[in-house]
């Protein structure tokens, strides 16, 4: 019994498909350089770092993350293929989602060998310490002189060292997130309780109709309210209302026994919610965001 115009949601999918196809055909987007997969803290696609250096650096970055929570990664590319370094580096940083979600404490050092360009991309949370100016100084004074001398590994080492020194001690271990979660759960709980209450009442108040229809209506109403917490909570609350209503109505009046029809209807109509994130093992971004802070340079 939702207002009629809700039904036209169906039309949105084809529209999206058209837009999506349009994107596929857009030559500009086709030529854009892909973001490489985040295989580790050091992603060296140009093979510029000897394995020994890469390992050492990676260990250093890992130790730093354990100590401070800051996520620092290095990407070395053979070429940018015509893309502006700022745009590409922001795209990589936001795709990799370096840094923690609440603190946005990620840093990306990106180096493009062919264009001889580099950039330090700084997450929102570190902009205060690793400022644009500080990033520019690191590039200008630590990295570029070594790159100019032809020693890429030394430049990367000196650069990451300077970055780590700058941001060391800036991050206090996050207070245990339990409080936030409790808060979230309690508000989710409110939605669920109100939802069940509203759905149950509505189901009871309706004097006519089949028991099944009334339980269904109550469940749908509950879902509408409780989905504000999350889809999962909505489904759970709706199920609860359906069961409660079914029991209450069975106790009260006549009605056909139809077993678990409502349940099967419900499960099939709202099947499949998205799963949680998968841990690939190894290194992955923590959900940090980037607002374009940092500096670029060339050599």
């Amino acid at each position, binding site marked *: 019994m939702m207002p009629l115009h809700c039904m036209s949601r169906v039309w*949105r999918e084809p529209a999206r498909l058209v837009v999506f196809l349009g994107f596929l055909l857009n030559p500009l987007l086709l030529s854009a350089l892909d973001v490489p997969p985040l295989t580790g803290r050091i992603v060296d696609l140009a093979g510029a770092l000897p394995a020994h250096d890469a390992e050492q650096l990676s260990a250093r970055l890992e130790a730093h993350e354990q100590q401070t929570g800051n996520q620092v990664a290095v990407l070395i590319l053979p070429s940018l293929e015509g893309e502006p370094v700022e745009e590409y580096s922001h795209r990589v940083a936001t795709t990799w989602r370096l840094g923690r979600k609440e603190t946005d404490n990620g840093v990306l050092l990106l180096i493009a060998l062919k264009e001889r360009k580099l950039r330090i991309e700084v997450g929102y949370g570190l902009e205060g310490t690793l400022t644009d100016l500080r990033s*520019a100084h690191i590039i200008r004074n630590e990295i570029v002189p070594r790159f100019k001398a032809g020693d890429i590994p030394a430049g990367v080492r000196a650069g990451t060292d300077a970055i780590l020194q700058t941001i060391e001690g800036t991050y206090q271990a996050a207070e245990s997130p339990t409080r936030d979660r409790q808060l979230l759960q309690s508000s989710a709980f409110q939605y669920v309780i109100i939802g069940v209450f509203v759905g149950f009442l509505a189901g009871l108040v309706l*004097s006519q109709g089949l028991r099944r229809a009334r339980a269904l209506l109550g469940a749908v109403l509950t879902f509408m*309210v409780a989905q504000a917490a999350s889809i999962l909570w909505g489904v759970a609350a709706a199920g609860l209302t359906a069961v409660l209503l079914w029991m209450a109505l069975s106790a009260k009046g006549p009605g056909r026994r139809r077993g678990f029809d409502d349940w099967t209807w419900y499960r099939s109509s709202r099947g499949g919610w998205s799963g949680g994130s998968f841990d690939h093992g190894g290194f992955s971004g923590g959900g940090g965001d980037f607002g*374009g802070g940092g500096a670029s340079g060339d050599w």
Partner: protein
Amino acid sequence: MGRVYMIVLGVLMTGGLWGCGYNDLQGLDEDTKAAWSEVVNQYQRRADLIPNLVATVKGYAAHEKETLEGVVQARAQATGIQVTPEMLKDPAAFEQFQKAQAGLTSALGRLIAIAENYPNLKADQNFRDLQSQLEGTENRITVARKRYIDRVAEYNKMVRYFPTNLTAKFILHLDERPNFSVADEKAVAKPPEVKF
């Protein structure tokens, strides 16, 4: 019994609003405002850097009066505009803001371009630092604008798409928002003219 039905109807309508983007629209409305604040914030940051920059350039190239004054004027124009939330709803005011900021962008471009002619200025530590900060800010502006453009596009879609447009129009009274235009992008992307 009539009253009971009214209650049920009310509950259903509330539920229907949820289903038809009431919350989504409200959320997107807030999102666009937040994205807009970030844009304004970054533009402000740029404006704050300019007095220092002008003073530094003056030290080396005091006779480039025209360019220097151009920057000062453009800055005054850009900061003179009162930024209000109402601006988001008013295409004309939005356009004006956009134009003023684009004017400042090109005036700054000219200033940086003339710096190329003064090796001493280019080597000045203070100038280099200011230039890095300016570059950083321009980049943040780009990011903030991009985010705003995305948010507004999303919002406008919701306001125009069929089921949700009814909620937007009749219940929330939300209108489409002006976005940064391509013409403006072109003006910004245009390389500054270099005069000799």
